[in-house]
């Protein structure tokens, strides 16, 4: 899993790439919580561009939950953007699409 992030249009856009499972979820969670802290400091939202994520197991989903708890406590909104078909299905099966806002594109997340 590779991680990059940038500030764009008043949000942090984080772009993890690769698979997120038990071998990579720890690093994914650490990066995610770091991005939440940066977003909190700047008082802006966090958009996770999911386009580069091949698939995400329950470990990755639960890392999202841990990050969301910190984000909620700091008043930061997390939006999941542009998941591929596999990740979209996983979000639906896990019902995580009820816990997180999910948009078709990064632009849509930035505008939300």
């Amino acid at each position, binding site marked *: 899993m590779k991680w990059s992030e940038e500030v764009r249009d008043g949000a942090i856009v984080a772009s993890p790439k690769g698979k997120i*499972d*038990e071998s990579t*979820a720890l690093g994914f969670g650490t990066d995610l919580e770091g991005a939440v802290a940066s977003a909190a400091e700047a008082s802006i939202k966090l958009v996770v561009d999911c386009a580069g994520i091949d*698939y995400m*197991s*329950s*470990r990755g*989903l*639960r890392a999202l*939950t*841990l990050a969301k708890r910190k984000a909620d406590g700091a008043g930061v909104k997390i939006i999941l953007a542009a998941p591929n078909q*596999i990740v979209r*299905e*996983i979000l639906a*099966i*896990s*019902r*995580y699409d*009820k*816990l997180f806002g999910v948009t078709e594109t990064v632009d849509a997340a930035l505008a939300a």
Partner: protein
Amino acid sequence: MLVRFWGTRGSLAVAQAAGSIRSKIARALVAAKGRHFADEADAAAFVEDELDFATGGTYGGATTCIEIEATAGDGSFIVCDFGTGSREFGISAFARMAAGHARVFNVFMSHLHWDHIGGFPFFGPAFDPGSTIVIHSGHADVEQAFRRQQDEISFPVAFDWLRAKIEFRVLAAGETYRIGGLDVEVMEQQHSHKSYGYRFTDSAGKVAVFSTDSEHKIESMEGEADVANFFREADLVICDTMYSLADAVSMKEDWGHSSNIVAIDICHEARAKRLALFHHEPIYSDDDIQRMHQESIRYEELTRRDDSLEVLCAYDGLEVRL
């Protein structure tokens, strides 16, 4: 090894109401499209072959009770939990004992909540003076739980009036015991007042794992390696899959249960061969459980590694031969 499910529902026994049966019949008639059936067997073949399970059958509503027939065991009955499914099991056991089966029961308790002990007062062999029932548990207070539910305030037959020889044996987590001709490994699990999982290995090397009422806490995911080790290369893992992951980490966190997708992930990590989705949410209809099963199969496909994991959905009456 044969694993037979007598009760698969979680938390509370449920039953189909008239409206549910009407809906199944109506759906079946629509699916038949006016077809003529020569006799009941012909119609039964249509139900079996052409209707989905939620229409042609039901997952049932009895609470946890599982029977394991071991290859080259010692002839005793091997049972997990005394949920309401144990009433039907007791009736079946009487028939088999009449045909010569040993009147000995080795019962392994996941824990002592009502849905896992509530069938015991209706378990016929407990009233049989020729039967011996050995109740194994990780809980030191196991006997208290069984006696308490038969106090007069709750039940008309006191525990001491039961005619079977009943023994309680406390097992230690992390240990492996030789019981009933099986190796039985014990694992402590996360649940209110704790629960225990059991890994059964018969003399043919077949392995069934019983792991219900076990929450995999979001704050301690690294501990799942121990669970994966307990499930390692099992032929069948019977796993608590009561909630969606979203429910398990939000509204229903700390309720002591797991999700279908965490179970699949751990089974993948363990390289287990089969998973039985188990301890179904009592508010789920048959359609809901069937949908959860289909979604679980799809999730397994999406996250599969080298080996595929067969995802079964347990129902009252299911038999799985390993």
